[in-house]
Structures are given as C-alpha cells and as structure tokens.
C-alpha cells in the first residue's frame, strides 16, 4: 500500500509552528517513515502542486497571490489542517486590520507601489474550507502529532477547546488574577499550552485563542474592576488572536478612539 502523503505550506508567519515538526527530533525520522512528505520547503522536499492526503498550513493570507495559491492547495488535498494562530485567526499580523496599512507601507517603504500586501491579514478558513484547526502561537508537538496520528488511524482528531483555567487548576497553580490582580486571559482562552504563563506566575495572554463559549464580556468587566483602563482592556483581547470573532468584538467594545 502506498504511504499516506502530507504537505506543509507556509503563508505569512514566523515559521514557529513548522518548528513543531522540525523540532521533533527522532520522531521526525519516524514520521517520515509513516507518511511521505511531498512538500515542506523549509525541511527540503519541494512539490507545491502535489496531490496529498493531508495539507498542513501555517500562516495567514495577506497578499493577493496567497488566495490563488490557497485554492490550488485545497483542490490538491483530501484534508486541510491549519496550524497556529496566523492560519486559524489571522495571527498577530491581523492587528493591522484595525489600521490603514496603505499609510504604514508609505511610512516604511520609499516605493510603496512594489509592495504586495492586502489591507487585511485573514485566516485560511475565510477563503477555503478547513477540515481541522490546531490553535496556538505556536502549536506544540503533541497537538500536531496527535492530529496526524488520529488521521492515520482513521479517526477524527480530538478538538481540545476547554479553558486554560481547567488545566491551570489541574496543575495546582495559584491563580494570578485572584492573588495578584493580574489581567489573566485564562478564563476565556483555549487550553493546549499546558497553562504555561500562570505556571511561571504571569497572566495568560491568550496565544491559543478563544475557548468554547468564552464569556469575554464578564472577564473584561473584571479587568476594569482591577484597574485597567478601556484601552488596556481592548489590548488584552487584541493581541495574538485579534482576528477571532469573540476577541475582535470584545476589543471593539472597549477600544476608545
């Protein structure tokens, strides 16, 4: 039987989520025995137009060219999986969606006309059907391996969408919001990181995006209660996953012009 095939594509991003594969170490060699890696530019294999079973996409759509490239990838793949905040919500560069980037290009580049850049940075799902999303900035090895492993076994990969708070309690961390008045995003943020920030005594900054049914409004009111001004509250929601709907809307409520 032929081995299942995968391809890894990069759009606008920092390369950090591909590292979840490149940093695997020994399991990367094992993975290359379980599946055939058709395209993965950073690791070497190049075949952008190959038909594959699983297409893994890192990065957000931010140029006109991206959209056409993406449509082709969708046509060539059986399953399409997005990895990381950029691909699933537009990422940190979606912060530009709130600004006039034409003006910015003018500020940064002496000859703006040669720069191809859309006004918005958008997630992959805005343009093509996405079968599965792995959240996180960055995604970790466990997430990506368990998703690929599940698909190889022919089962639907598990979608972890609990709140960070639950994981934090399991780890018996001391709550940074209750004890230190830190504006922790844990109550509305998707688990998966292992509650890293609270475990080192810092407030969660929601790099894994919104959890299921996030009560953002109550949390934002609480931030107001511990002394954050409106603009600071907006910035808690408008950071790594500002393009996700719950965070986008909550930020808008507090943003002062």
């Amino acid at each position, binding site marked *: 039987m032929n081995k299942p095939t995968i391809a890894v594509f*990069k759009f*606008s*991003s*920092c*390369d*950090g*989520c*591909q*590292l*979840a594969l*490149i*940093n695997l*170490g*020994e399991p990367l*060699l094992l993975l290359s025995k379980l599946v055939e890696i058709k395209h993965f*530019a*950073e*690791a*070497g*294999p*190049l075949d*952008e137009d190959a038909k594959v079973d699983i297409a893994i996409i890192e990065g957000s759509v*931010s*140029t*006109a*060219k991206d*959209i*056409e490239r993406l449509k082709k990838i969708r046509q060539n793949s059986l399953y399409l999986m997005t990895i990381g905040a950029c691909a699933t919500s537009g*990422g*940190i*560069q979606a*912060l*530009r969606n709130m600004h006039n*980037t*034409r003006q*910015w*290009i003018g*500020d*940064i*580049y*002496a*000859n*703006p*006309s*040669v720069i*191809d*850049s859309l006004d918005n940075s958008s997630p992959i799902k805005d343009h093509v059907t996405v079968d599965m999303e792995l959240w996180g900035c*960055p995604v*970790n090895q466990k997430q990506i391996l368990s998703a690929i492993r599940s698909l190889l076994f022919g089962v639907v990969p598990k979608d972890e969408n609990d709140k960070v708070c639950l994981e934090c309690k399991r780890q018996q961390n001391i709550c940074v919001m209750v004890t230190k008045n830190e504006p922790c995003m844990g109550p509305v943020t998707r688990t998966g*990181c292992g509650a*890293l*920030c609270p475990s*080192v*005594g*810092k407030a969660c*900054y929601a*790099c894994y995006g919104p959890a299921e049914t996030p009560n953002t409004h109550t949390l934002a009111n609480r931030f107001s209660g511990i002394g954050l001004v409106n*603009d600071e509250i907006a*910035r808690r929601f408008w*950071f790594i996953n500002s393009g996700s709907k719950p965070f986008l809307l909550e930020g808008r409520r507090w943003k002062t012009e």
Partner: protein
Amino acid sequence: MKKTININVPVLARVEGEGALELTIKNQQITDLKLRIYEPPRYFEKFLEGRNYADVPDTVARICGICPVAYQMSASHAIESVFGVSISPWIRNMRRLFYCGEWLQSHSLHIHLLAAPDYLGFNSAIEMAEQYSNEVRRGLKLQALGNDLVALLGARSVHPVGVKMGGFAKAPEQAAVDDLLNRVQDIKQDAIDLINWLDTLDLPEDKQDFISVALHHDHEYPFNEGRLISDNGLDIKISEFEKHFKEQQVNHSTALHCLFDGKPYLVGPLARLNLNKEQLPEKVKQIMQGLKTQFPSKNMFHSIIARGIEIYFAVLEAEKLLTNYQADDEPCMEFEVKAGTGYGCTEAPRGILWHRYDMDEKGCVEKAIIIPPTSQNQPRIEQDLKDSLIQFGLDKPKDELQLHAEKVIRNYDPCISCATHFLNLQLERDGITETSIKTLITPPHFKNIKLNKTAIIGVGSPVEGDDLGFQAIDCLQENIKIKQLLDKGLLIYKLERPGMQLSESIKKHDHVIIIDAMKPATSNQKVAWVDVKQLKQKTNPYSSHQLGLAESLAWINSSSTLPGDIALLAISEIDKDLLVDRILKCLQ
C-alpha cells in the same frame, strides 16, 4: 556564440521564510542578479506603537519562531536602558544561559537540516539520515538540548513565556537544572565530534573580501552586550549604530537592505568568530588549533564550521552556568517607568539584532525600530553570489549553477520571516529563458465593446531603461486608424511603475489592453498576446518592473471591482504595423 542563461528559482528550499533568486548571464557576464524576498511585510514596528512595555517581549518574539530569544533579549535590554534598570549578576547569567539554548537549537537546525545536505549531495536531512544516521541523530540531540535549555527559563522553546521586563518570571527549579547539567555534560564529546566532522566536509574554496561586524566584549564571547566592532576599524557604542548603518528599500524585496557606511557587510557566526576568537574559552581554542580550517577566515563557506564551534562554546558556557546555578528569590528587577530612548543589540544566531525604542512617560512604546540580521546580510548575499558564481564558472550547466547559488544563500542561514520580516532561481543566458510565459493561441477579442469605456495602457519604467511600453503608446497615437478610435472616446495613456496605481486605473474602464515589455518563450513574435492569468500565477517578474504588474493584476482579480476584460500585449521590439494590427483586431 552569444548565449544567455536565465536561472529562476521560485521557492528556495531549506531556508526560513519565502524567497526567490533571479539570475541573468549574458556573454559570460552576470547582467542581473536579485535575491527577491516576497514574504509580505508584517508591520511589527507599527503593532508596538502604543503598547505597554510589558507586552513588548511577547510581541517581538512573534517576528521569528527560530530566534524569539534574540528578539526578547534585544527588546528587554533596550527598554530597560530607558527605565535605568541595571540587572543583577543572576539575571545576566540566566540571560546568557537562555541565549546558549537558542544558539544550540538554531545552529544545530541549520547545520543538519538546512546546510549539510548541500555538501553531501542530498535534498533533505530526512534523505541524509539513511546514510548519515549517527550524524543526523547527533544533530537532533544537540537541537533538542538547545530547545530544552530555552524552555528551562521560558517554559517553552518557541515563543517562550518566561521573559519579563527586568528579568525572568520565575527561577528554574534546582532539579530541572541538575537534569539539564547532566545532559550538557554528556553532550560535550558530541559537540567536539561535530566540529571535527564539519572540518572534513568538502566545502568550496571561495575567498572573498568582506567586512565582518559583530558585538565585542573584552572578556567574553558576545551574547547580550558589548561594543559594535568591525575588521575595518569600527568601534562604537550600540547607540551610535544609526550613524553608520542605514536601511534602504530595493524594489525586488519586502525586506529593507541595510548598509554600513554605504557598503555591504557580514553579520553572524563567521563575523563573530573572526572578530572574537580571542574571547573563546581555552578548551574551544584547543579544538580549533587542530582543525584544517583556520580562523579568521575569508571563505564564507566556513560559516558552517563557525556554527559548529559556537555550538561547542554554547555547550561549555551552559555547563559553567548550570554548575554555578543557585536559585534566586528575585528573578526580576524592580523599576519605575520613564520616558526616553533606549537601544538594544544582541547576537542572534544569525548576527546582530538591533532595536531602538522611544518610550513615553506611561511606559508605552511611541516608536520602535528593529533591524534583523537578514536585512543586514542581504546586500552581502547578493555581492557574494556574484563573486562566487564567477569563481564557480558561469559556463557551467544550469542545474549546477542553481545548486551553487542556493548553497551560497543557504550558507547565510537567511531568516526571511525575520527580514520581512527565499529561492526561485530565474536564469537567463543570452536571451534564452528556460522558464517563461507562453503566448495565447487564440488572440483576445473584446465583446460588446464601448470605446468610451476602453483604455490602452503602456507600462514601463523609463528611468531603468524599460520604456518599450511607452514607445508603443507613442506609435499608436501617431497611427491614423487608432486616431479615429480616439475620437470615439478610446483612451490611451502611459503609466510609470504599475503597482496600485495600475489597479486604480484599470478599475475605471470596462476593457483594458496593457502593453508591457516582456519576452514570451514560445513565440518569436515581437508583439504577442499573453495570458493574463498565466502571468498572475507566476511569482517572478519577467521585466524589470513587472513585479508591480503581475501583483496588481492579481490584486484586481481578488477585488470585486473587476473590469470586463483585461488583455495583455507583450512586446520585445517595436513593430508598428504588427502592433496596430493586433490592437485593431482586439477592439473591432
């Protein structure tokens, strides 16, 4: 015989980020060479404006997944200097340990997964692992140790969360430190074996004249602090960087090019080692004495050995720091925010990473400037490519030229995510383009045409000598038959440097004919119709300004305000009759 070779590498493999290479050779001379970075800009400096200092380390980390530590360190030192924080020896040591982890992981990744396959004849480390199992596994082990050292202080290796302005969020547990110390001690021999193995690689002989720039500290190999020095006499404070180093835009790259007193220069492992050899510990110097390769070196390909040497240094430094480790109750300094300007410059794995922040009295960023290593190295890479390909021999077959060019580029470990934050080689030897656009078999014909909603646009950049599009417009305006159409409302005009201007112009009309200078591969005709869609799919420009053309056409396509029809006429020489004939057939 006149011969033109065009090498076009549209996606460069085994580099971090997206880039391409275009190369034209005419009569055994390189007439055009561009390392094109097309990864879109990500505007980090703008995102930082208005943000509180506390958000800065977690924001700048996102510029690069491979060297987030470097971004966090340069930013922390810059902003701490504004607030007047002087860090404790414990924090200073832990920052060095944190950096050891990043060098280990990044250098091991580059040597084994990105560069070594080039010298051993493989396409990837995965292929290489069959034959060089021990070497690849040793590399992965070093890489893993680096990641775990970063995670010791940062809780994870990519975008670590443990950094706070003033220090670290939490001191590591002694048990975790002891565990890593054991692993570091176990890996020392692996690091020595790695250097000796790298010294046996068949690296090209390629001496070049270049300027090395790096941080320099009197008693230590540089990580976080020091003066900026060069091998041609520079010796300045990091705050004086802007006096000598200037960024400028080049049209073929979304990464700005940085020049040192107007000249290209090198940053990174080779530059560091060339300038700081004396600061290495005795044990490293001893190993270096036994090598075939000696430093300082002017052979850029010795970078891979410099990386190996820095890996051994990082292992020894980590051993020292972990051995002397004592948990500290104060992993972070206390401070008060102040307004002012601060500078930070640290040695990222790929070279100096310079930051400047203007902070307001509330501790928020007013303005940020970030100059990553890759934008500093980019002009040097282009210069190196020219010199290196000439030494290699421009008469070599295309495949060999392409591989050599890719080797040269990969050798710099360019991080394109950083620089825009790579390679598609387009080679042209004396007019023969091997990858090129095809002409249309059926010429376009506009249906239901209204002349008053139709335009013919000639595009070009006369300054760069690309004025065929303009000449075509002049010819058309003189033609009697075309003049009659002008009276009926047809518009004819010239447009310099297409870009967004072109898309704005196109939107105004129902039907548009664009005339541009380009040479289709499948036609000897001087004037030929080409498929607009085909052009859009290509990532490389075919004429000096076409980047703007292809991309603005793609942009128009993605927006809802599409005109009825766009036809693209490619001209390589002015043939008046053919030009008029083609235009009239399309319009009638």
